[in-house]
């Protein structure tokens, strides 16, 4: 009877690790490292291209001292294919391919279920008229949730279990070997296989309990994530726009100062070149912030969570898609945090007027 159970378990799972949800983690990590390296090279080259263009322009402008203007790329309300930079008055403006602001995408089919068993939030006296949230509250709610998802899935626990299970299995083999009588040695391999299967089933139980928790959590979080992602997108976009306006004003005033220095009598090439560098730095800071799109990132986070909800809901023991969905959601959450922090991290000259 137990032999049949062992055989069934072995057939069901095949190689033990093939059923593990974390078997892909090494491959994914290796791919992620390579992608990070490619991304770093791309960023490095992009930076060099900008620096070389600035140097070429600087050399020319120090010699010719033309009136300088902010280029058409320095528009804080458009998605242009050209970067924000200075340009000499009278030179043909670079061709601008205006990409219209994307229309709000039609909402895809709502994957969320109607929830009737919401977890009870702590009640307070102010429940009838709760105070408005602070911006940080939105990010904290998402942060708490991703942290809880990590606690539920806890990949390391499964890896520890697989390693330790092999040791326990070997110990069982040794135990059977030491058993008295003629059955000892002959029974050892069978006992080891049986224990492997038993441990594996315990391991599977561990995974399925976590999966059940994950199914319940993502089902309940589905609609709240939609609402919070939309709200966060608006709030972060507002912050980005305010920062862009400030950087635009700074750039305009640096350009104004540059043209004043140009027109001053006996201005040295060194002083004029330094003023060009100053204005170019403001243009770069503007460009860095403009490249962020918190609203699109928030929408991507919402979509990633929808995919996770569907993957978890349809999961039938095939964990590969589930792990991929979890990683995508985690990446989108990180991207959102990066978008939120970019505004604060871009450095520009503190003075508003040179």
């Amino acid at each position: 009877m137990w032999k049949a159970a062992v055989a069934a378990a072995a057939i069901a799972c095949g190689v033990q690790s093939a059923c593990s949800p974390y078997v892909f983690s090494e491959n994914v990590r290796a791919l992620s490292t390579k992608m990070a390296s490619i991304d770093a090279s791309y960023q490095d080259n992009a930076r060099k291209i900008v620096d070389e263009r600035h140097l070429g322009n600087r050399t020319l402008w120090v010699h010719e001292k033309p009136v300088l203007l902010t280029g058409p790329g320095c528009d804080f309300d458009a998605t242009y294919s050209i970067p924000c930079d200075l340009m000499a008055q009278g030179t043909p403006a670079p061709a601008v391919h205006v990409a219209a602001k994307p229309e709000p995408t039609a909402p895809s089919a709502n994957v969320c279920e109607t929830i009737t068993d919401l977890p009870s939030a702590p009640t307070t006296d102010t429940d009838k008229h709760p105070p408005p949230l602070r911006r940080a509250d939105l990010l904290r709610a998402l942060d708490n949730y991703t942290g809880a998802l990590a606690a539920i899935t806890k990949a390391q626990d499964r890896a520890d279990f697989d390693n330790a299970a092999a040791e326990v299995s070997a110990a069982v083999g040794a135990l059977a070997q030491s058993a008295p009588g003629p059955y000892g040695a002959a029974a050892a391999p069978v006992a080891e296989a049986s224990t492997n299967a038993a441990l594996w089933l315990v391991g599977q139980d561990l995974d399925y309990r976590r999966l059940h928790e994950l199914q319940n959590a993502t089902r309940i979080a589905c609609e709240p994530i939609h609402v919070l992602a939309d709200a966060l997108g608006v709030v972060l976009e507002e912050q980005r726009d305010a920062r862009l306006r400030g950087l635009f004003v700074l750039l305009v005033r640096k350009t104004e100062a540059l043209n004043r220095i140009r027109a001053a009598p006996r201005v040295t090439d060194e002083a004029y070149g330094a003023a060009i560098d100053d204005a170019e730095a403001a243009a770069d800071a503007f460009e860095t912030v403009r490249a962020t799109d918190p609203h699109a990132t928030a929408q991507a986070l919402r979509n990633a969570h929808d995919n996770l909800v569907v993957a978890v809901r349809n999961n039938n023991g095939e964990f590969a898609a589930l792990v991929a969905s979890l990683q995508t959601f985690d990446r989108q959450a990180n991207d959102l945090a990066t978008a939120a922090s970019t505004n604060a991290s871009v450095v520009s000259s503190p003075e508003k007027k040179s």
Partner: protein
Amino acid sequence: MSQPSTIDQLRNARDTALAALKFSIDAIAKKIEVATGPNEVALNQRLDNLVNQSDAIETAAVLALPEVIAAAATLNALSAQMTKTAQQLPTAANLLATTATVLALGQQFSGTLANAHHG
């Protein structure tokens, strides 16, 4: 066709208000870059006013929407519940500690039995 959400309506209203001011900001900025003479100060003052007006158009109302407050409360309660559940899930270490204890007892029993058999 589904109706835009309240959040989308607030966002669209903000974009419309900002677009009107942006047109003026662009025009003033172009003049300032090449400005000389006494109107420089006035132009800069006008630019500051326009930017301040734009900054004042905010969407803080989003943070006071009942659905947003309720969503944050639900997610926070859910996260607390998930974290608590995760702590109660059996960890690999707990399972193996139990298994190891049973095995050690088994080994001890087996050894005792073998000794008795030979003895």
